[in-house]
């Protein structure tokens, strides 16, 4: 424990150097802007700005601190377009749209932005604190999570998402199946066989998750706006000056904490990232809520849970990278590449060989989280003002932002057609009262489920009992059962007890 404190002390010395402090702030600010663009999340933000950071010729610790700032900033920025425009800023911000955007439409954009900033801050800080004290132990837990455990985790994720079932269960199921089918397109990760490629090389490696998200959410929203505008039902929003209050925070404090814990533990597992973490946190929160009727219509808990979770998972993903040198996600793979670029090898040796970098980076995460909160809260009013842009200009702007986001990363015009077509499809789904969340979750979870199931079976040589023989998996199956059964039992009990009473206000 002493080593942690002295390490942190030396790290803060590095990170609080005026120049490095400036870089953290600059990185956070640039990251927020980049993250706010739909489609450009932390992965691409860091990848795009990495060569610049390198070419500026900073000392390694300064450059890494700048990149970490960008990483965190982009993670924060993703929520802005989710809340204001109903267009997810990146893959981890999909669940944020579900309650964040309704809040904005109810005239609480300022509150949604500030509450999510606070939730992100708590989630992010929670992750950094756990990482600095228990990093190596957590990393060893993460790598012992075997493919069969992932299968159990996916079962748990699906179970907690049972709460997303809407008024028509068949439509919810079909929506999830559509997501699963979309995810099955492309080269199979186990045998290398191409599935449903239809001779189009652009989808040979599968449909990119971002393209699906921007298409189904962003472009569908655009079509929806034009439809409302044509029908004359579009309301112009007034400038709202709402802001998060202590009462709101007291109401969501356990939600934020639960979201942080779920997000962090899913984040440290290699292969699962912010999108899985925020989905599970949202589903579990809705499932655990006494009165979940407001979820989807602007419930603060539905906003706070995924935002705390996706920032906690961003921190969690750094754990195996820093302590073992194993990148668990796309973004950390790029940060790992960045470290290697400066001839620093992440892993256990980094803490003894280059402590100024290891601890400087960790300290800069503490500072980055505080900086982001300080940067973001005053900007809430400014961002919220975006909604008062007249519709005839806001609508084209959404399209342009989506096109920039999708094109600038990979420069493939094919993706532009894809988002347009998926947008039309998503609009029909919306009009016909399918919810889009199950499509996205099917897409994210389906591939992970199938790949890990088959991985587990290749390990066991075809013996299915491998799925239930580890401690982790048994616990997860039990949790999955609890998540499905308990709310039903509790609901029945409560109905029995409070027959005839008006539904309780959430406490």
């Amino acid at each position, binding site marked *: 424990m002493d080593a942690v404190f002295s390490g942190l002390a030396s790290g803060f010395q590095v990170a609080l150097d005026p120049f490095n402090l400036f870089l953290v702030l600059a990185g956070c600010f640039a990251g927020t802007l980049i993250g706010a663009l739909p489609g450009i999340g932390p992965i691409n933000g860091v990848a795009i700005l990495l060569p610049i950071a390198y070419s500026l010729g900073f000392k390694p610790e300064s450059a890494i601190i700048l990149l970490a700032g960008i990483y965190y900033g982009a993670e924060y920025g993703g929520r802005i377009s989710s809340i204001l425009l109903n267009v997810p800023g990146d893959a981890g911000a999909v669940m944020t749209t579900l309650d964040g955007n309704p809040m904005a439409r109810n005239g609480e954009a300022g509150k949604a932005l500030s509450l999510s900033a606070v939730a992100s801050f708590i989630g992010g800080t929670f992750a950094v604190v756990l990482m600095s004290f228990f990093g190596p132990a957590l990393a060893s837990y993460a790598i012992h999570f075997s493919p069969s455990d992932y299968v159990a985790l996916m079962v748990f994720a699906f179970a907690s998402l049972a709460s997303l079932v809407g008024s028509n269960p068949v439509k919810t199921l079909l929506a999830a199946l559509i997501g699963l089918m979309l995810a099955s397109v492309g080269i199979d990760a186990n045998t290398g066989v191409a599935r449903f490629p239809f001779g189009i090389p652009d989808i040979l490696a599968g449909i990119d998750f971002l393209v699906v998200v921007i298409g189904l959410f962003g472009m569908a929203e655009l079509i929806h706006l034009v439809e409302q505008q044509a029908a004359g039902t579009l309301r112009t929003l007034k400038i709202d000056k709402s802001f998060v209050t202590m009462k709101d925070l007291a109401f969501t404090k356990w939600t934020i904490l639960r979201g942080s814990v779920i997000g962090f533990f899913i984040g440290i597992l290699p292969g699962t990232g912010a999108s899985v973490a925020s989905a599970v946190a949202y589903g579990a929160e809705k499932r655990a809520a006494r009165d979940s009727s407001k979820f989807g219509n602007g419930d603060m808990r539905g906003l706070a849970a995924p935002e705390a979770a996706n920032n906690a998972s961003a921190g969690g993903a750094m754990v195996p990278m820093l302590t073992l040198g194993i990148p668990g996600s796309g973004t950390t793979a790029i940060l790992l590449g960045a470290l290697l670029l400066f001839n620093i090898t992440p892993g256990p040796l980094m803490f003894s060989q280059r402590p100024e970098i290891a601890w400087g980076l960790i300290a800069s995460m503490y500072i980055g989280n505080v900086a982001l909160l300080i940067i973001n809260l005053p900007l809430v009013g400014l961002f919220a003002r975006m909604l008062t842009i007249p519709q005839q200009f806001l609508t084209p702007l959404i399209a342009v932002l989506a096109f920039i986001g999708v094109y600038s990363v990979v420069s493939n015009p094919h993706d532009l057609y894809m988002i347009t077509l998926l947008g039309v499809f998503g609009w029909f789904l919306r009009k016909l009262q399918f919810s889009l969340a199950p499509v996205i979750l099917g897409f994210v979870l389906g591939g992970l489920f199938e790949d890990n199931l088959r991985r587990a079976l*290749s390990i066991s040589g075809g013996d299915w009992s491998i799925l239930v023989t580890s401690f982790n998996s048994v616990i997860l199956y039990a949790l999955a059962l609890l998540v499905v059964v308990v709310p039903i039992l509790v609901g029945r009990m409560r109905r029995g007890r409070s027959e005839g009473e008006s539904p309780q206000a959430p406490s």
Partner: protein
Amino acid sequence: MKLLNLASAFLLTSFVAVPAFAQDVDRPECIAPAQPGGGFDLTCRIAQQGLEKQFNGPMAVTFMPGGIGAVAINLFNTTRTDDPNAIVAFSSGSLLNMATGKYGEWGANDVRFLATAGTDYGAVIVKADSPYQTLGDLMAALEKDPASVVMGAGGSVGSQDWMKAAILLKSKDVDPKKMRYVAFDGGGEAIAGLLGGSIQVYFGDVGEMVSHVGTGEMRILAALSPERLPDPFADVPTAQELGYDAEWPIVRGYYMGKNVSSEAYSQWVEAFKAAYGTDEWATLVKDKGLLPLNLSGEEMDADMKKRVERMAGIAKEAGLIE
């Protein structure tokens, strides 16, 4: 009505001609046929930094993911066959895809190989406390029962990671179809699987082990290289010297469209030749975790085509293609 006029004006603009490509290398560009951050990105960064002094303007790096390079090779066989400015990064994985027909109709003869960036070699890796302390131990177990050892790597069946395992088994006439192979999504996850005990043997690259040498958590049983590698791998035996005829080089380099003018092609070749002679190039390649391999021009083109042919032979033997 106003709307209609506008729409037609909008459509009309689509007939503005696309400017023709210039015939000289005036805007050098390296295309990484993947998302940012991977090996192709790295290959392009080597060209970008290594050729900085050879061209007037800075070299741009663009990304063209899709089908592990299929989108890029498709584009360079349809519209940009003579683009003098663009080079495309490739690796042994791309050559294997050409050999096994994964790129559809496009094969090794549909591109013009230009130069190499460097090379890496396959490696057989186990956990430090593994029961297999030498390659001999491992091979003895595999020869007795190929399904007794759980092996894995970061690529699917038929990928170059799988090929490393397949050629090693082939060297002792063990059928690769009988082994137990687990495909992970990338080397990072596979290493996690190895350390976590899900798999017992990991087929990786020597280069990625740089960051793990010295931690004492993993050991390299053998490198799939023709001869011993420089430090920090000087103590690692090659599979060859242990009596297993298994070699798997992972070459990284660049190709161009097949109709590129010979002036432009030789301008690029000269640029690479000039860069190969400098110390900066050598450090650059080393920093990126590669070993030097300086081949360019026609000689390199012929060498790559030979490699593709050899891979097609191995793939056929292993039962991947008919």
